[in-house]
């Protein structure tokens, strides 16, 4: 006697967190049942494999029907088809949009295009995240990217509004969108040691200091794009590097200011601009912070340097990034 049709529908939609996890991880019904069996559910509940299969199928069907709504979480709140208590709705959305950092790190700065999606097989192999889950997460990134691409105002808040995500998750998505937009190359070997979290923090400080929204909240351009005018202005700062005179003066100003305050003073001169030497020379984060402070402040005393405000805006983000990157 085989069951052709087998459904269970509750007035309040039943959500099994474990099965949801398995579904999100991209397991098939059979795999999910196998995993649930391994979890010892059978013994605990004194039930049968058939019951477990039927239950898993029911949940999978529900999730498949819910997926369409999860693509636009505000609709999940408005829809009438499934009666789900608010805290359960929140859980569904959060779990659906949660991502593997390893995967996000791999995709950071890449164009969220079909081409990239085709490469997901490799990414899946490298990160150990199931391919179906990879695709779902990639689609999430892309969906969020598309939705906020053209929107004004703070990126993280927009994402929070449109996808009803908790603030921290929304900030992470903002970072992903920021990198995808500005295509920073994060795949370079020298940057391999940096985690997704590091980059996310960097993106946040860059957006906080450099974006248009940071200067004028009603700005026309989305926060994900760095304002062109700002990038233009940055060229002016090149003078600090290109002008040998200014460079030397800058250096000596910083050095004199820091004399006696930093334990590794001897190597100081060699350390301008680069982070790797600092690491190899075992600077303490405190030292670096102090150094950056003075490095930022010093040009004020440089004769003929007129871009102090711009410089400080530039350095605020750079300092934050460097400090974040400066870890073991």
């Amino acid at each position: 006697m085989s069951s052709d049709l087998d459904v269970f529908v509750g007035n309040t939609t039943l959500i099994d967190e474990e099965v949801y996890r398995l579904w999100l991880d991209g397991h098939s019904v059979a795999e999910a049942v196998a995993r649930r069996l391994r979890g010892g559910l059978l013994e605990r509940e004194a039930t049968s494999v058939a019951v477990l299969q039927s239950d898993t199928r029911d949940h999978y069907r529900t999730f498949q029907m819910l997926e369409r709504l999860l693509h636009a979480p505000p609709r999940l709140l408005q829809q009438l088809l499934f009666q789900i208590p608010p805290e359960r709705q929140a859980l569904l959305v959060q779990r659906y949009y949660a991502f593997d950092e390893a995967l996000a790190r791999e995709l950071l700065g890449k164009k969220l295009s079909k081409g990239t999606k085709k490469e997901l097989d490799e990414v899946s192999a490298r990160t150990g995240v199931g391919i179906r889950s990879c695709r779902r997460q990639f689609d999430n990134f892309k969906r969020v990217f598309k939705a906020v691409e053209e929107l004004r105002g703070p990126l993280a808040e927009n994402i929070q509004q449109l996808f009803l995500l908790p603030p921290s998750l929304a900030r992470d998505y903002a970072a992903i969108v920021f990198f995808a937009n500005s295509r920073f190359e994060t795949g370079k070997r020298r940057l391999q040691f940096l985690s997704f979290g590091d980059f996310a923090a960097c993106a946040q400080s860059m957006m906080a200091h450099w974006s248009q929204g940071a200067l004028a909240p009603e700005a026309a351009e989305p926060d994900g794009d760095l304002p062109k005018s700002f990038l233009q202005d940055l060229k002016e700062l090149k003078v600090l590097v290109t002008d040998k005179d200014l460079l030397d003066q800058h250096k000596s100003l910083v050095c004199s200011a820091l004399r006696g305050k930093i334990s590794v003073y001897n190597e100081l001169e060699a350390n301008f601009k680069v982070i790797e030497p600092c690491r190899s020379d075992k600077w303490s984060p405190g030292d670096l912070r102090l150094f950056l402070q003075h490095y930022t402040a010093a040009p004020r005393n440089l004769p003929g340097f007129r871009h102090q405000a711009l410089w400080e805006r530039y350095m605020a983000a750079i300092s934050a990034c460097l400090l974040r990157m400066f870890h073991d």
Partner: protein
Amino acid sequence: MPGKLKVKIVAGRHLPVMDRASDLTDAFVEVKFGNTTFKTDVYPKSLNPQWNSEWFKFEVDDEELQDEPLQITVLDHDTYSANDAIGKVYIDIDPLLYSEAATVISGWFPIYDTIHGIRGEINVVVKVDLFNDLNRFRQSSCGVKFFCTTSIPKCYRAVVIHGFVEELVVNEDPEYQWIDRIRTPRASNEARQRLISLMSGELQRKIGLKVLEMRGNAVVGYLQCFDLEGESGLVVRAIGTACTLDKLSNTSAFLPACNSPSKEMKEIPFNEDPNPNTYSSGPSTPLKNQTYSFSPSKSYSRQSSSSDTDLSLTPKTGMGSGSAGKEGGPFKTLLRQQTQSALEQREFPFFTLTTFPPGFLVHVGGVVSARSVKLLDRIHNPDEPETRDAWWAEIRQEIKSHAKALGCHAVVGYSESTSICEEVCILSASGTAAVLNPRFLQDGTMEGCLEQRLSWQPGFFSIGSEKGEVDFFPQSQDSSSLLGIEEASPPGCGFCHIPYDELNMPFPAHLTYCYNCRKQKVPDVLFTTIDLPVEAIVVGKGCLIQARLCRLKKKAQAEANATSISNLLPFMEYEVHTQLMNKLKLRGMNALFGLRIQITVGENMLMGLASATGVYLAALPTPGGIQIAGKTPNDGTYEQHISHMQKKINDTIAKNKELYEINPPELPEEIIGSPIPEPRQRSRLLRSQSESSDEVTELDLSHGKKDAFVLEIDDTDAMEDVHSLLTDVPPPSGFYSCNTEIMPGINNWTPEIQMFTAVRVSRLSNINPTNQTLNKNFNDLCENLLKSLYFKLRSMVPCCLCHVNFTVALPEDELVQIAVTAVAITYDKNQALQANKAPTEKSQQRASTDNEEQLQFPLELCSDPLSSQPFSPAKEVLEGASSHTGIPAAQRATSVDYSSFADRCNSWIELIKLKAQTIRRGSIKTTTSLEKASPLAEGYLRHRSVPSGTNSTVSVVKMTPLSFLPGAKITKYLGIINMFFIRETTSLREEGGVSGFLHAFIAEVFAMVRAHVAALGGNAVVSYIMKQCVFMENPNKNQAQCLINVSGDAVVFVRESELEVLPPQPAAAAQPTGAAGDVTT
């Protein structure tokens, strides 16, 4: 023009993309009622159109208002080709036709298409203005209230229970009309949906007319069903119990809207009343007001007496002063005369109610049932559905005579059903023969009656019943002895006492003196179709008992087929009965409640499924065990096997007794419950089968001379029967189940509920099926389904599955379809644990003290707890209190509304319970809050408090097959929900196969029910039932079709905890809090 219907189309949202090019939709709406259609403007290029239309006004007859549904069609405008339909919304405006239900229907409705399912939502506002036109109510019955609930609705009082009303209408099924060959499936489905909606409206109106004729104002226990007879047509039939109800919460009488269009009427009587004092000084009781409030509509009631007619004009005075319970002494004779004339019209003393006020049910005789096999032929003249009427009349007559044979003059818990396969139809009716006691209130507990009316408690029969049912009373026979019973027998056992003559029993039965009162005779087992009476004294807990059976039958045509079915029926009934009896004994119980036997006919087999809730009634003797006897006693191994089986059975009985806490008080003088079986089988079943030729076969169910409790194993079949007895696995720990409203023995419900529907279709794959293998398959199917439900709902433990309702269908040759609807309700574990602590000796004590307390129950409850127990939240005190009062209260807790004493004291008990619950909840919180404390959730919640335009949360609507919501008070009944949907697909695989298709459809049906309830301003559906779920598939064509019919009562409820805090504003408090307290599974 007695009415004006006004409709406003506000907006749409989440519409589907209808124009591929632009990814948008140019939507407009057609609003149709009767033959009038209005259209909104086209709202171009939007999936969220804002029509904000004017008020579309339909001026219509009230007859039309009752029959027609409001049809709203959403379309996509297309300049070059025909406009595409997006979907439809049917709105039943009936709830707007009585003054006390909803005043406006307003909200978001899912836009439904029979091919695509739900496609977006539409916001609609509907109002009705009724004009006061007293002269023309010939055809309409506006204002008669309908309730699916099979008890007196919670915020009403029954003034009179008039009795049985029935009606049926027939039509051709659009699916089988010639035109169906050329039109699209969508058009065909819509024609069908519309027709059934129209027929239900018509049926309801006709029933309403009958109710008005009986001078009632409501139908309780309304059950409407469809018979899809295929080629021969479509039958919509309904039964119910006509009542005169009186709303409890406000002082104005409940008057039909048509007679008293809302406000105007309430003023008019006062203004026109020439001399109100004349009547208020006299014995103007609510009864009179009720009885005559309809007089304007009925010419003959005017003739009755001039003073009566005038009384109708003074509704308020009656309620105010008459409520003190001055009996209408001088009016009694008059009333009786009128009742007699009413009774002459009453052909069938049937009641579709399953729950009654304590004492109303004097005796219960047993189950009466009748079945008849009919051959369907085309209904030639839809306007005169006489054949179908005659069929049912015949069956009802049979039921009536069965009841008489049991010494009973009434049938309660009455229901009717059909099973159709091709051109053969089995009509079934069943109920419980009973003697009702209208005098109880008058003679026995006059004071109780007084008290009750003073305290204005709900759901109690008042003076009215004394007149209404006088003539049922078997006065001729033994009125004197009955009077004796009334005085002597305590309420807890009276209904068990036999109504029939001991010396002239209708069937062989073993009688003993009642184990409770020792004064009257009781049978050894009792089967009923009603709910456990609230006053019944029960030992331990109850449980769901099912008998399942398959019988193969040869495929045959017409007459031959009907004959073979008729021949099989008696055997099936017999076996179902035997199974029930054995399973009951196996659980150590002695009574069945809520018994429902379903016989389903298929092409090559018949299936029988009986469900009931077993209990141990303290008044009935302890059941004996089950003994197995082998036929070949010489065989040693065989003997060994037998003894092994016997041991297994004995173990099971012992285990079940422990599981269900069945520890009856020991009675030293007469130990009848010896393990040695009694010599005869007693049957409470009287039934008959009649074939199309109307032959009636009576069956002796006494098993001849065989010993009922001895199972003889003479062949392998019998062996398997015994095995199958033992295969019923008890529910996992923490679960109980029953098919009645409440679970006997559990009373500390917590508010968490989960209503669900599960459907399974299984293929019987045997090549050469035998009855045995089929039985086993069917048994497994049911058991597995139950197991699956327990697993699904494991997070709710400890909980009870209530009102478990199985329906079996045989859609095709080898397919069996089972649909289950039930509700899981959590209960407080602490008390359950407490009960477990005292396993044996203590519970025996408890049971015996139980009895004592039952005897003096009203006194104890009223005086003792209120005076001697100082209120204190301390736990010990609470538990102390509950050990005094909790146990007797236990058995009535969920339905306390019926009892005046219980009710008055109840509020106090509930106060304790509530406090206790809050304490317990506090301690539980530590575990449940784990999940909520996750940082993500917290963040999200924080975020959600940030205002955002999209956060319009959908209001929660609870659904339950029960007539109540635990921990809540129903403050308003908004009207009946009766919905019929068809869903069809031609892309079955793409929609996830049969399971995906049906899963989505059931979810859609729930959603549409919830949306309608919410639009009426309600927050729950009670007495919800899925009456039909017809599923057909054609996998080869990638097609499937399903029809679902559901009904229930839309209500507004308020949490009891909030009632205490905010008593004056119930409706406003209801909705948001209903949401907050909802299930988290």
